[in-house]
């Protein structure tokens, strides 16, 4: 029997992995197993054959191409134009520093024995044997900052919740933000689908540390595979005693459930997410009080992005200093960069913070998929700046990007070639805000609609026509009002992509007066 692995990742499935798996299952002598993705999405479906040399990969396999591959000797790992050799030795993988992604694609995602064999639960065991205050300090030492966008130190957040609990709060909750609404981001999804136990372990460490007995994973409805995978993983972990009434024999309880969003980008904002979890409209709450003090049902609540939780098991197992040894400036550890849009080699690339945008886009990503010159890269999601091709030398760190007018956000990079119309992208930023605004504040709700209209008037008014310059003044006024008058970053940061388009690509607006 030859074992052949075909990813069950939803991106792999979107380009035919299920059909490939079904076709291979028909072949005599073949056992098909379904792993998560290795993260090299441009090679999906990436089929791996177990051989004496290791797992040999065949890229972009189509169901109707399988007879030819078999003919060429695929089942013994023979060479072929689509063969990438032993997958573990692939330079795109070996160039990474995988901390959180270390297990993706290796096994069946809910194979808990494989998870244990690969070092799983070591972080949880250490946390259970350690005083909660020391666990928190370990996370502080790691320098880990929230990977959901705002970059707030995770250890400090946990310390606040722990202190509230020690100060008499009856209950605390732990919530994972798996709303991942930013275009160009999919690291949360990949990890949830490929290695769900890492998230469960990170959340459980948080729970036993702050004394929470209940937790929620708030997952966007656009991720049905992740939802199903996580529910399976929770059932398996509960059955094996890692979740439930007695976590790993510690006598402490932690019950976890998945809750599903309903197609609202704003529910990724943490207070909106809490409203949604409580069953209401996802309207943003004013802060203070911060969720760490008054979150779900007014109890102290840890809210972290999935990637923040996914860094925790290693931080506990290997020590905060080991994590902090990586990085640049005040940006410590690794980041899972997501290479997206018009890019030749799209996927997830985990590297220490500080790698430059140019390395990611050109060396690792291989430039555009269309082969045309890169013109712009949007970094950090729909509220992030568009950086022009001559500004890609910026190191990927929180402060470093801020200095260049950008933000790290959730680590997504969206590449555009020279056919992009930046006035259209600026208009889209305003349109997206108008569609996804929670409606609580006027500058965001109305300002974004006015922004769309104003950009339309600019692009439909001939250059040099009377009144055209005033339209730019009006647009700038709108941006200023949104920036200062919005309750949250949805309205507050929508002007960032708009202004960056105006600043770096004025020619696309028919020439701006500046």
């Amino acid at each position, binding site marked *: 029997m030859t074992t052949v692995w075909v990813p069950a990742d939803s991106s792999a499935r979107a380009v035919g992995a299920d059909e490939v798996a079904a076709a291979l299952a028909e072949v005599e002598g073949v056992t098909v197993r379904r792993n998560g993705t290795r993260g090299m999405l*441009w090679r999906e479906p990436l089929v791996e054959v177990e051989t004496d040399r290791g797992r040999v990969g065949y890229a972009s396999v189509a169901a109707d191409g399988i007879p030819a591959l078999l003919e060429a000797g695929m089942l013994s790992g023979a060479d072929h134009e689509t063969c990438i050799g032993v997958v573990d030795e692939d330079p795109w993988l070996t160039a990474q520093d995988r901390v959180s992604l270390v297990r993706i694609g290796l096994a069946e995602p809910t194979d808990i024995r494989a998870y244990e064999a690969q070092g799983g639960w070591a972080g949880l065991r250490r946390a259970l044997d350690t005083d909660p205050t020391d666990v928190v300090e370990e996370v502080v030492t790691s320098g880990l900052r929230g990977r959901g966008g705002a970059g707030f130190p995770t250890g400090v957040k946990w310390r606040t919740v722990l202190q509230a609990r020690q100060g008499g709060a009856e209950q605390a909750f732990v919530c994972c933000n798996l709303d991942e609404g930013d275009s*160009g981001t999919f690291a949360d999804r990949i990890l949830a689908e490929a290695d769900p136990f890492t998230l469960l372990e990170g959340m459980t460490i948080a729970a036993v540390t702050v004394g929470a007995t209940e937790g929620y994973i708030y997952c966007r409805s656009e991720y049905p595979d992740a939802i199903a995978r996580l529910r399976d993983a929770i059932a398996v972990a509960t059955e094996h005693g890692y979740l439930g009434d007695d976590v790993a024999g510690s006598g402490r309880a932690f019950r976890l459930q998945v809750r599903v969003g309903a197609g609202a980008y704003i529910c990724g904002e943490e207070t909106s997410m809490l409203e949604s979890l409580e069953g*209401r*409209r996802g309207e943003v709450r004013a802060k203070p009080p911060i969720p760490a003090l008054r979150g779900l049902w007014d109890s102290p609540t840890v809210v972290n992005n999935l990637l923040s939780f996914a860094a925790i098991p290693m931080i506990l197992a290997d020590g905060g200093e080991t994590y902090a040894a990586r990085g640049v400036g005040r940006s410590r550890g690794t980041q899972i960069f997501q290479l997206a849009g018009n890019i030749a080699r799209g996927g997830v690339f985990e590297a220490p913070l500080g790698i430059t945008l140019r390395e990611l886009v050109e060396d690792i990503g291989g430039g555009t998929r269309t082969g045309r010159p890169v013109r712009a890269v949007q970094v950090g999601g729909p509220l992030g700046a568009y950086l022009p091709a001559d500004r890609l030398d910026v190191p990927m760190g929180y402060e470093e990007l801020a200095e260049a007018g950008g933000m790290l956000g959730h680590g997504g990079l969206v590449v555009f070639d020279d056919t992009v119309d930046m006035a259209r992208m600026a208009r889209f930023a305003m349109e997206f805000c108008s569609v996804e605004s929670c409606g609580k504040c006027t500058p965001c709700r109305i300002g974004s609609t006015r922004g769309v209209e104003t950009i339309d008037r600019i692009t439909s008014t001939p250059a040099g026509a009377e009144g055209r310059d005033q339209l730019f003044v009006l647009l700038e006024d709108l941006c200023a009002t949104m920036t200062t008058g919005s309750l949250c970053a949805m309205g507050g940061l929508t002007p960032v992509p708009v202004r960056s388009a105006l600043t770096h690509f004025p020619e696309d607006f028919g020439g701006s007066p500046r």
Partner: protein
Amino acid sequence: MARAGRQQTEALTPRSARGESVRVIAQRYARERGPLLEILHAVQAEHGHIADEDVAEIADVLNLSVAEVHGTVSFYHDFRRSPAADHEVQICRAEACQAVGAADLWAATEQHFAHREDVEVREVFCFGNCALGPSASIDGRLRGHVTIDDIATAESGWSR
């Protein structure tokens, strides 16, 4: 927030089969914390959409006002207030897909189905498939590298 008391309708009007089913679904989740979204998803999965009568049933079971439940239903893009079309084609219009032609795909898809009332074309902002765009979901099945020809091919596989 004002909350209506339990409506005293139980003995007066016989409940429809749908009403009965919605009640059973709502009761299944009613003991959980913050169950409303769970209930709405389950009702929509079972009945295709969330009708006004469903809102009233759910409000009654959860002891919330109709306005409160209605407010939640109307906030979220996923919840539909009227029955779905036979087929649903969702096109991602977000930035990473736009970088590889999603705007044209969206326009072409809208035009392609303009004459078919049994097909709903919807915009979606990101499926998390942003390295293999343009992305679309055809009757719930996600696809990458989508062209208008792929959509026409999928359509030809539908039994009319």
